[in-house]
């Protein structure tokens, strides 16, 4: 457990030190410290994963050593260890890009990225509903601060994002208050066996779900996401789409698969799954129509979150452990692929001097590596084998296809696949149009392009470790 807490404390410490160091540190040193601490956190997370795998059960820690019920408890399951690892990996990949590519970034990015890392780690480890509320606020504030990094044009979307995010947290908090009023507990594991399907519990869960869906930009509460994510600096967009929206999704999963009584969970399951299906198609169609590259990628996040929501809904409806695996495989595969997609989009935007999708004509010739990264990451979003996206989709589809009465859901998944294929191919097809090439404004930044490709390669590499991941998620369970 100490290792997991180190993985959480290292980025927080280094963020505080960077803030303290200020301009006394050179920009290079700042970036170096941030990346080094991310690496240390990654190693700690890996060791924590080994620890929890060796223990074979979930580890619990009563903070302050107080008795259960009085203390805040932290929980290290194989899932939270995996998410710690995933968070550190994403920060490392994106940090490397931000540090080495020519795109350059405001030095404040480094401290904020450390803070974001720490907030997410605190969220994955927490097993206390109110503590989760604070981590949500931490996440929201850092995310908004990072959107504001890109200067005055991003202030308006950042302000709207912040106001909605605060309102969403309050929905969640009111739900927590009602649950505490009803059961006198804040601890997830203590609440789980006690909840009943009565009015207060329903009301509380409804409020919390609304707040969390708003925070995670799940359909139909997703409208704030594209402007906020598209206006952030490239590295930040990648972090926001790849990681930040997964935080509230995790709490939603904890809430429904553990805290809520199973009867209620079975009732809400189909609703969530249908919302997920609509998100898939509606988000995909918006992405297809979007004139700007980054907005397209941001809408694709809305669509892809539909898969995760659908997996969660079906998990609740049938209580199938396979859906649990599918859900988290989606989260990880989407995180890596989306990081690559945003980085590639940002690089192409910078090299070609255009923000419009039309500007990508002939990109295979002018910016081949970045375009390759875009296509490869897009392939995982579509679910082409043998990518991580394929792995997740396969785990999701297997139980759907085996029984004829589940075919409508399977058709929904396939429809979503079709739409994702459409918006990815729209870009790819344009990039092969070598007749009317849009010439690059500046000499493309090779290092940046290759670094954009790195996460995409990793998501294809996920298939190699697929067996291990599935066993980890299946074995650890909750």
């Amino acid at each position, binding site marked *: 457990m100490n290792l997991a807490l180190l993985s959480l404390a290292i980025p927080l410490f280094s963020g505080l030190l960077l803030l303290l160091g*200020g301009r006394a540190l050179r920009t290079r040193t700042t970036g170096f410290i941030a990346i080094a601490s991310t690496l240390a956190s990654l190693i700690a997370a890996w060791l924590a994963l080994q620890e929890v795998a060796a223990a074979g059960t979930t580890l619990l820690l009563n903070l*302050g050593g107080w008795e259960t019920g009085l203390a805040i408890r932290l929980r290290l399951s194989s899932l939270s260890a995996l998410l710690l690892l995933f968070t550190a990996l994403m920060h490392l990949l994106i940090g490397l890009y931000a540090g080495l590519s020519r795109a350059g970034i405001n030095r404040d990015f480094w401290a904020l990225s450390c803070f974001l890392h*720490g907030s997410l780690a605190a969220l994955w480890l927490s097993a206390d509903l109110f503590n989760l509320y604070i981590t949500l*606020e931490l996440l929201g504030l850092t995310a908004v601060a990072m959107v504001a990094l890109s200067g005055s044009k991003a202030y308006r979307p950042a302000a709207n994002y912040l106001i909605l995010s605060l309102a969403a947290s309050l929905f969640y908090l009111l739900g927590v208050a009602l649950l505490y009023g009803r059961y006198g507990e804040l601890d997830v594991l203590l609440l789980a066996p006690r909840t009943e399907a009565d009015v207060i519990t329903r009301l509380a869960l409804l409020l919390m779900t609304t707040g969390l869906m708003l925070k995670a930009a799940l359909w139909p509460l997703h409208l704030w996401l594209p402007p906020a994510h598209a206006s952030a600096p490239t590295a930040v967009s990648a972090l926001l789409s790849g990681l930040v929206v997964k935080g509230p999704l995790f709490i939603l999963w904890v809430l429904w698969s553990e805290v809520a009584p199973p009867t209620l969970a079975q009732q809400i399951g189909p609703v969530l799954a249908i919302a997920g299906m609509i998100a898939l198609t509606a988000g995909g169609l918006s992405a297809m129509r979007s004139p700007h590259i980054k907005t397209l990628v941001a809408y694709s996040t809305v669509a892809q979150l539909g898969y995760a929501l659908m997996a969660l809904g079906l998990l609740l409806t049938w209580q199938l452990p396979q859906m649990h695996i599918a859900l988290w495989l989606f989260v990880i595969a989407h995180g890596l692929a989306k990081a690559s997609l945003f980085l590639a989009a940002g690089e192409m935007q910078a090299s070609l001097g255009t923000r419009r999708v039309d500007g990508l004509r002939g990109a295979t010739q002018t910016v081949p590596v970045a375009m390759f990264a875009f296509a490869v990451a897009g392939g995982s979003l579509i679910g082409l084998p043998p990518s991580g996206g394929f792995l997740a989709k396969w785990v999701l589809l297997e139980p759907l296809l085996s029984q004829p009465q589940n075919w409508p859901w399977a058709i929904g998944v396939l429809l979503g696949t079709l739409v994702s294929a459409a918006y990815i191919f729209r870009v790819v097809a344009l990039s092969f149009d070598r007749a009317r090439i849009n010439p690059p404004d500046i000499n493309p930044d090779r290092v940046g392009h290759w670094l954009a490709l790195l996460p995409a390669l990793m998501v294809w590499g996920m298939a190699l470790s697929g067996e291990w991941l599935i066993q980890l998620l299946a074995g650890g369970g909750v």
Partner: protein
Amino acid sequence: MSPELLPDLTLILLLLIMAWGALYAPQRSDAMTLFIAFGVVVALIWARLDAPDLALAEAAIGAGLTGVLLMHAARALPDELHRRNRTATYWGALAFAVVATLMFLAHLLTDDSLLNAGLLDGETDMTPRLRSLADATMGDSGVEHPVTAVLLNFRAWDTLLELLVLLFALSGLRQLFPRESAPDDHATSRWPESLALMAAWARVLAPLLVVTGGYLLWRGSSAPGGAFQAGSLLAAAAVMLRLTGLLPPLRWSSVWLRLAVVAGALFFLTVAAITGIWGEGWLTYPAAYSGLLIISIEIFATLSIAITLSLLVIGEWEDLRS
């Protein structure tokens, strides 16, 4: 309806009027003023509901900081560009709130209500927990006041993260003053001469606020009060001195300022890590030192809260970037 409910009903009515006005007053400046008044009524309600810690906190924030924040906003954005408060909105909101509240009230009185669902029969569920809490408080938490014990010992992790919330908000605010943006087009307006009187008054009031803040901090271990209440009072004093020009800009380039800003979180986190790695567990204070540790954490936290809040409220380019 018994006569004891009279003060409650008055407060409730007042609060509803303030809330209504803060949302729908035709002029935005009126809405802001009513929002400040709303805070005062809320503080009274906290006192009425036997929550003196909260009454102090609310009053400390509402009295100084929210007011300055909103006045700053009112001065920066004088005209409301589009006023869409049509009558239809008023009636819609009124109908919405009244219907929903009546439904809730009616629900309170039915069989399947909150009462029967256990929300209001607190006694049975709560008593054992509260007793164990009280025992722990009397025993070895290091402080006597239960709210402080919860904040700094039982749920210290929440408080640590809460210090980070302040810090992250400040980091966000700093992004609004990019390095390149010259100093500066908005802070140049002339300071009115009539406000010399305010400076004189600030000289009297600020020491009073500092003394009261120190007292609240000291008293927090045994009675209502504590780091946050003290920090907000100190912040109010700093804001007042800064606004009247009695205090020079708090320059971010000074390492002491940065140290003061991160001190609370850094010290708290260090204590957590040290107790975790070499001690009995994360945030488990050694019994002999728990009182000392808690008061040191509170002192650092008060410092950080005071500086961070004052920067959040009045920090300009000179304070945050230069």
